[in-house]
């Protein structure tokens, strides 16, 4: 290669390209850019060696530091758990009845546990615990499975009709759709149920409905219709309704049945968290206890 022409002013070599008398200088990339490029390559090689980087034929390059994001998050979660165990120390105790009897806990922990409630329970039972159509009110003091601390804890831990081997099971059968009662009998039973809760009803149908009730409904709801804690059958004589207490609502419940689901929280929440929520429900729920 011949010696190339140089720019007379700067002394830089020219590329030899020329357009209409304008010649192009062959200036190198600025040294800072070149340096940064090589430095970044060096850094990437360094990190490539230090950290997990590349799948291999069996397994992957683990890196010289042996770093693992999964190990790190496991440690962080463990630490958080330890911190919470300290911050919520009383709830490490498994004696839920003693916890429920401690009047000092609500003022101290109520607000913090409210966050736990909001994140997990409020979607169904609402932020104010008052429930909504299909999801029970937790504040009215009317319980399906009793309001004792142990039973509330059981419901939270194992759920109702949930995907857990120890879950509570309760089902209102589809007496109409399932062919156990004909439509007339359903209507009679509905009138009788209306009479139980002191609502306006057709007296004649209700008298006939009494027989239907004793035959088909009393096994779960009791002869007096007051329900029971053993099988979670609701009290039909009060003014509290999960699925509505109007004639049409009750008809739908009797005809098509009901099977509400409370998810099982074991596994999703820690034991201590389940105890906290149990108390939270009791603190807010026993104001109107009967």
């Amino acid at each position, binding site marked *: *290669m011949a010696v190339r022409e140089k720019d007379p002013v700067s002394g830089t070599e020219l590329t030899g390209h020329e357009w209409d008398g304008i010649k192009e200088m062959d200036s190198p990339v600025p040294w800072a850019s070149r340096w940064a490029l090589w430095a970044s390559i060096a850094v990437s090689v360094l990190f490539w060696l230090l950290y997990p980087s590349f799948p291999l034929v*069996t397994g992957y390059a683990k890196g010289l530091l042996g770093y693992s994001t*999964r190990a790190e*998050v496991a440690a962080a*979660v463990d630490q958080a758990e330890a911190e919470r165990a300290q911050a919520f120390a009383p709830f490490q105790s498994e004696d839920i009845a003693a916890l429920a009897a401690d009047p000092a806990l609500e003022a101290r922990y109520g607000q913090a546990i409210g966050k736990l409630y909001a994140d997990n329970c409020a*979607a169904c039972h609402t932020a104010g615990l008052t429930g909504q159509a299909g999801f029970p009110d937790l504040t009215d003091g009317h319980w399906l499975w009793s309001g004792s601390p142990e039973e509330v804890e059981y419901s939270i831990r194992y759920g109702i009709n*949930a995907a857990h081997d120890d879950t509570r099971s309760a089902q209102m059968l589809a007496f109409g759709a399932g062919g156990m009662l004909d439509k007339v009998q359903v209507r009679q039973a509905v009138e009788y149920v209306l009479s139980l809760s002191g609502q306006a009803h057709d007296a004649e149908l209700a008298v006939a409905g009494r027989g239907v009730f004793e035959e088909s409904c009393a096994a779960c709801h009791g002869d007096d219709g007051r329900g029971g804690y053993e099988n979670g059958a609701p009290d039909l004589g009060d003014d509290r309704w999960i699925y509505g207490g109007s004639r049409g609502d009750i008809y739908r419940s009797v005809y098509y049945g009901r099977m509400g*689901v409370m*998810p099982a929280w074991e596994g*999703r929440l820690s034991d201590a968290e389940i105890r906290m929520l149990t108390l939270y429900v009791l603190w807010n729920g026993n104001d109107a206890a009967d």
Partner: protein
Amino acid sequence: MSTQHQKLERNSIGFALAILLVASIGGIVEIAPLFTIENTVEEVEGMRPYTPLELAGRDIYVREGCYACHSQMIRTLRSDVERYGHYSLAAESMYDHPFQWGSKRTGPDLARIGGKYSDAWHVAHLEAPRELVEGSVMPGYAFLSDTRLATGHLPAALKALSRAGVPYTEAQIENAEKDAVWQADFEQNFEGELQESYGAKVQVRDFDGQPGRLTEMDALVAYLQMLGTLAELDTLDPEESSR
């Protein structure tokens, strides 16, 4: 400048080969790891292909763009794990084509939503989100409850996935339509058959609260209730799964 390079520039075949060589480095770095991808998928028990009904629900999930606001990827961060549960595993999306990891959380992550709420809640919430969650910006999907689920394409859908590597059996492909109907059967008459075919964790029941009607709501709720429930995380070998 190097005279070597000038020589190369003037040799068109040689220069083309040199370009190919340099460009292929980028390709190799991106593609070669895929040949050994199995090595990066943890071994965990419980993972199975989607049942036809869940798959139909998943297709509705994709069709309605749920991924635009909901991720299905619990990251290895304390905040994620504390809120949503065990971080997601590669194994948990190994039958996903395409995966639904997502990159935006306008709504919460759904990777472990299965079992957190009841079917009735999901149906009511999908129909009218603000009736249950104050201030929610989620659109309503009430039409899902009124739309019958199309099942005719399910055998073909399973077959396509099996070609992409999802281990569906011939019988599963053949029975796809029937299995979809059976899984939402309110009398749960065929629970045994489905569990034999797809494993003990198949959830068989009427999902949408309309017994005897197979709707898109059935499929979507069946899919949501399955999310994150398959992998038996306690069978995970911590040594083997560290990343």
